[in-house]
């Protein structure tokens, strides 16, 4: 089973925010069940904390978290969802990063590890979710 990870989870673990140990356990278990991946958005956001791309890749590689490029189908699906959401007033749904993560997890992975304050289905309606 392929698990895509959202930036929120990586930030919680890295900063040791509340519930970080639960997430660490959950991802350790997920790693034993299959590859852990991050899409371009998550990699771009999380790697911003490192001085270089190489360092970010090395750190993620140590944890067997793979950078998984967006496929053509995922890109098209994300943009399609984005266009569908444009008429709505909800500001989050009008941001392409959410749609890219959603489509990537739905089409290129089996589930998405994500931590949100409100119902994560609000942001990520398509994939199966791994929550703590």
């Amino acid at each position, binding site marked *: 089973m*392929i698990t895509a990870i*959202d*930036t*929120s989870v*990586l*930030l*919680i*673990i*890295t*900063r040791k*925010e509340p519930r970080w140990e639960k997430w*660490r*356990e959950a*991802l*350790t278990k997920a*790693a*034993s*069940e*299959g*590859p852990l*991946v991050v899409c371009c958005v998550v990699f771009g*956001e999380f790697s*911003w*904390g*490192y*001085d270089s791309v190489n*360092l970010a890749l090395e*750190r*993620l590689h*140590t*944890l*067997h978290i*793979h950078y*998984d490029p967006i*496929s*053509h*189908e*995922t890109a*098209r*699906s994300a943009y399609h969802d984005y266009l569908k959401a444009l008429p709505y007033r909800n*500001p*989050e749904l009008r*941001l392409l*990063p*959410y749609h890219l993560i959603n489509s990537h997890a739905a*089409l*290129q*992975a*089996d589930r998405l590890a994500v*931590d*949100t*304050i409100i119902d994560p289905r609000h942001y990520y309606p398509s994939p199966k979710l791994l929550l703590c």
Partner: protein
Amino acid sequence: MTVQIQDSVVLCGHHLGVVQLGYLPSAHPAITDLSQPLPDGPRFHLPKCSALHRGYAAAWEIRDDGSLYLTDIIYRYHLQGPPLHAIWMTLIVYIPVGDIDATRSRELRYELVREATLQFKVVDGMIHQWRLVKGSGQGIRWKNGFDWPNITAMLKAQGISSELQPDPYSHSDKFSDESLPRIARECADLLRRAKLQYSDVGKKLSEDDWDMLRRGWADPFPKLDAHASVRAFRGHGPPVTSITL
């Protein structure tokens, strides 16, 4: 030899090409031979065309009742008036259908060979029998009459494209709008399986391994919690300019 201009035939609404479907009557008042002097005018000079050695190409039509009509002629002959029922024709008509056989087409060089041939026995301009031939045609029996629904069903059963003569360079039905979502799903599944097969499945991580993430990592938003940081990264939290560029 130069590739020759083909006859065209409309077979129950399908526009198809045939090297030479039939022949013209020896003399017919509606057909004018432009190479001969006209009774009331000058003689046309028709230069030879290497792509049209027989001097003309004809357009034919096979109607739903199995009757064969001559609808137009180009170059040497001219057809006046309405389409002519080809009652002078008694022959077997061969119409190639299906995908192009690239190997045999290369061997013949000047003719596109397709995977099958639709054959019609025509007697006095009417189709009496038909058969669909793949390969040599030996042992394939003729079927009486002209039953287009039955012919269509036979073509479908033999896996012949509904276009009958599909363009070799078109994507045909395989990449139609209807099939794209299915192709996308199949591609995604293949990628997923490849990832599972070639990545570190079942990799054991220790809890200490996660400390590696912190080494060399400087928090872009030290005053925000994880959720607010994500919102900031994506442009709907605090101004993005707070990130050091």
